[in-house]
């Protein structure tokens, strides 16, 4: 019945891509895995703090999978479709068990069980971790399993290959994805690859903002190429700025939320411009502004809130250390050996890159662009749990209104789960817009990546085996559509190569200069706080950059390992995605989660309790943005305050008096 030569392409070899590869290969379908780096070097290695899941200890304290679900929805400010989030929370403990079986060296308790830590947005210890390099350890575990499949001939890796575009056939309802065009980054060969389904697992787009915590391949280029081919892009404006990073000349390095989970305290001197060393500033002359403003969650408020408070303290109140945009993240009250045990990885990063030992000296940190909640728009089949009325806030100890059986939130194996608006084209992991709404909670990213791969990998298999590809496999299609797509990319490549030697090396057309200006503009206009006029200005700047990009000039004409060509090509795609981010931000006239509009300070469920969805018009190069309802039938939207104490006058006035 099914063709014996059916295959699945997975683009990206981070946690989502590898988890998908394992699941699809296990089901017996051959996998072609594409990555710009050896998959073991994927950006998932940068994740530090941990992975969330309900566990026995927390359960006996009143926690539940349902509470995890409620926290994630509340954290995301009610912008995520709720069914998939419920399914993810329900599935989470199974994922931890599986990783444990694969040999992930999770930190252990004295009794030899998996240790747990606190993380933002929860009052329960529900984060599993492996030192402070959890992402690296999880990635390695999946990498090892994929290597096993590779050794058995079930997975073929295409490492150092760059995805250039999806290949589509058919029109309207018949349109589907049947392969990709990719380029070998060494030989520069461009060629089409056939597949019955394509999974995009290409991560985030931090480089659009210049310096971020992301790795150098996280340009968003692959997502933008899908978008330009007709895939919708959802909630682009939802960009997470992580509160605690160390700014560097090349990137910003993350200092994990686990630093606060393990007791780290954020503070600034109460006296403006206090030049004393932090250790010389007595306790009562330190302003622990997060603890003061959020008595319940303290330093563990969600990231967007911590970021805005730090921004407020530094930028609006001028209370940053030495008048600079810096605050202290202080762990020096903890036992140094304890810190090495629990947070060794980030202690080492700070020490190596700043030259100061954070066990003895408070770290100086500032927010940085970190994660994209937005991404390729995807759909799903709702699960069995359909309450007559959405539930209210779930309190610890309450009996969850629904069990954890598979399929309560999302129908297991439904072919359309996490499929884009193009049949056969899926989006998993950070490039998928589902799960995190308007803010992602810490330690939920690793979970959503692996959940996508494992849970929805089955959907891919079912689509290939039972859907259109079962009767019209990609293998049986005429070569023309593949060759055409490949030729188009070849022409684009040739065109870029031909720019070498033009424009007499005018800086204006230098791709690196264009990228830098884009990053600076996007960071200034479209991150922590936004306004309509500033976003309009940003869009004008992006239009100017796009015009300049049309005359971009390269400085390397080599037909071998031409890295700057790859970068320059991505810059064009990044500019397009940047416009989507800015435009969706302009049109969302409300404040929700990470999206803070100073000119529209409140959440507006009536108008914007909806996902922004962008569609590209290839004829004009314009973006059409429309709004789609969010599934909120499981838990009712409520104000997201995290118990903020509004009277922050205390913080502002006392310090000056007491220290002066």
């Amino acid at each position, binding site marked *: 019945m099914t063709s014996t030569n059916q295959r699945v392409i997975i683009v990206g070899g981070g946690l989502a891509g590898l988890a998908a590869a394992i699941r699809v290969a*296990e089901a017996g379908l051959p996998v072609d895995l594409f990555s710009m*780096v*050896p998959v*073991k*070097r*994927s950006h998932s*290695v*940068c994740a530090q703090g941990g992975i969330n899941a309900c566990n026995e200890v927390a359960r006996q304290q009143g926690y539940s999978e349902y509470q995890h679900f409620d926290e994630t929805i509340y954290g995301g400010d009610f912008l995520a479709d709720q069914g998939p989030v419920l399914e993810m929370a329900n599935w989470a403990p*199974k994922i*931890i*068990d*599986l*990783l*444990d*079986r*694969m*040999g992930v*060296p*999770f930190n*252990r*308790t*004295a*009794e*030899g*069980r*998996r240790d747990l830590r606190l993380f933002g947005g929860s009052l329960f210890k529900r984060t599993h971790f*492996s*030192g402070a*390099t959890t992402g*690296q*350890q999880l990635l390695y575990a999946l990498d*090892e*399993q994929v*290597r*096993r499949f*590779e*050794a058995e001939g079930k997975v073929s890796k295409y490492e150092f290959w760059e995805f250039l575009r999806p290949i589509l056939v058919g029109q309207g309802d018949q349109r589907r994805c049947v392969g990709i065009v990719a380029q070998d980054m*060494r030989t520069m060969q461009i060629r089409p690859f056939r597949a019955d389904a394509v999974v995009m697992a290409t991560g985030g787009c931090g480089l659009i903002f210049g310096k971020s915590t992301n*790795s*150098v*391949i996280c340009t968003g280029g692959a997502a933008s190429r899908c978008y330009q081919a007709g895939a919708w892009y959802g909630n682009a404006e939802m960009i997470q700025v992580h509160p605690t990073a160390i*700014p*560097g*000349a*090349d990137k910003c*390095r*993350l200092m994990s939320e686990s630093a606060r989970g393990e007791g780290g305290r954020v503070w600034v001197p109460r006296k403006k411009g206090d030049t004393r060393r932090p250790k010389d500033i007595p306790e009562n002359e330190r302003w622990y502004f997060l603890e003061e403003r959020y008595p319940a969650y303290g330093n563990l408020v969600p990231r967007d809130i911590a970021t805005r408070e730090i921004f407020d303290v530094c930028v609006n109140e001028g209370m940053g250390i030495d008048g600079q945009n810096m605050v202290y993240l202080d762990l020096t009250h903890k036992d140094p050996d304890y810190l090495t045990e629990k947070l060794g*990885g980030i202690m080492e990063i700070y020490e*190596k*890159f*700043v*030259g100061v030992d954070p066990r003895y000296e408070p770290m100086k940190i500032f927010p940085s662009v970190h994660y994209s909640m937005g991404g390729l728009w995807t759909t799903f089949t709702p699960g069995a749990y359909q309450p007559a009325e959405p539930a209210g806030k779930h309190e610890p100890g309450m009996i969850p209104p629904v069990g954890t059986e598979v399929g309560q939130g999302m129908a297991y194996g439904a072919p359309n789960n996490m499929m884009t608006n193009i049949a056969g084209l899926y989006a998993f992991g950070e490039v998928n817009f589902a799960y995190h709404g308007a803010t992602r909670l810490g330690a939920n990213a690793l979970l959503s990546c692996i959940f996508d791969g*494992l849970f929805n990998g089955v959907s891919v298999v079912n689509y290939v085996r039972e859907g259109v590809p079962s009767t019209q496999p990609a293998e049986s299609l005429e070569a023309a559509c593949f060759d055409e797509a490949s030729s188009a990319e070849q022409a684009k490549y040739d065109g870029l190569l031909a720019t070498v030697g033009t424009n007499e090396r005018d800086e204006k057309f230098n791709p*690196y200069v264009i990228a830098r200006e884009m990053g600076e503009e996007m960071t200034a206009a479209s991150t922590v706080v936004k306004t309509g006029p500033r976003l309009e200005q940003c869009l004008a700047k992006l239009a100017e950059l796009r015009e300049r990009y049309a005359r971009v000039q390269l400085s*390397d004409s*080599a037909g*071998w*390992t031409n*890295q*700057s060509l790859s970068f320059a090509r991505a810059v064009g795609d990044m500019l397009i995605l940047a416009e989507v981010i800015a435009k969706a931000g302009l049109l969302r006239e409300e404040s929700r989660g990470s999206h803070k509009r100073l000119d529209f300070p409140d959440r507006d469920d009536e108008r914007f309790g909806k996902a922004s969805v962008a569609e590209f018009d290839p004829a004009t190069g314009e973006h059409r943005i429309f709004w789609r309802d969010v599934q909120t039938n499981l838990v009712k939207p409520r104000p997201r305050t995290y118990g903020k104490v509004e009277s922050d006058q205390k913080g502002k006035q006392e310090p000056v008096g007491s220290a002066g």
Partner: protein
Amino acid sequence: MGNGANSGGRTRNVVFRIKRCDGPGKPSRWEAFRVPVEPNANVISCLNWIAAHPVTMDGRPTTPVVWDSNCLEEVCGACTMVINGRVRQSCSCLIDEYAPNDGDTITLEPMSKFPVVRDLWVDRQRLFEGLKKVKAWAPIDGTYSLGDGPRESPAQQHVRYALSTCMSCGCCLEACPQYLKEEDASKWDTAFVGAAIISQARLFNEHPTGAILKDDRLDALLGVGGINDCGNAQNCVRVCPKDIPLTESIAAIGRAATIHGFKRFFRGA
């Protein structure tokens, strides 16, 4: 912080001498670039600067330098190269530390034990093939829900975690006198696997499920290119950026392999 950031408010420059090569089989050449130092600069930010301004010190336009990198936090292993004669990651190589004064020189070369792809980018595929050779994985029964994994003492977790931070960067191989460059992939199977791979074999032998394949791993390491090729120079442990106890791993695998060899001999296998 070093004194670079505050040299009287004006920018200082460092000179980068970079060994370049256009591709496999092509000759190498040296090019020098003068690069202004930003605050907190590292080798990566300087290479980025050169990419945007590919002009040599003597004013000759050239191509951007090609190099491999990704995370820039010293956890992915990609940006490994030889800097001032010593192998390390370039992201964590801070300019204020390596070249504190105006006009100081930093020399960049590709790793010498791997085939050059272009400039500073080398092909380390052999390393990943080595991981296959020693079956560096836990042979689980698939991804179905089968409960949790084996319990583990904190002490044992410390041992495994330290080994598991290996990012396959190849520093230990670059420094090893016994690990030699081999361009011919068909010979990788019989060439010395090196410390990183031996240590990964130990990592999986230390895990209850991983240990199911212990004999296979020891067989592979008793064969040609295995543990007996180690000359005990101990350079590996000195250059490992993650302080992985590589010589302990080599010793542990050596002991286990000896015992395994005896058993195999008496079994008549």
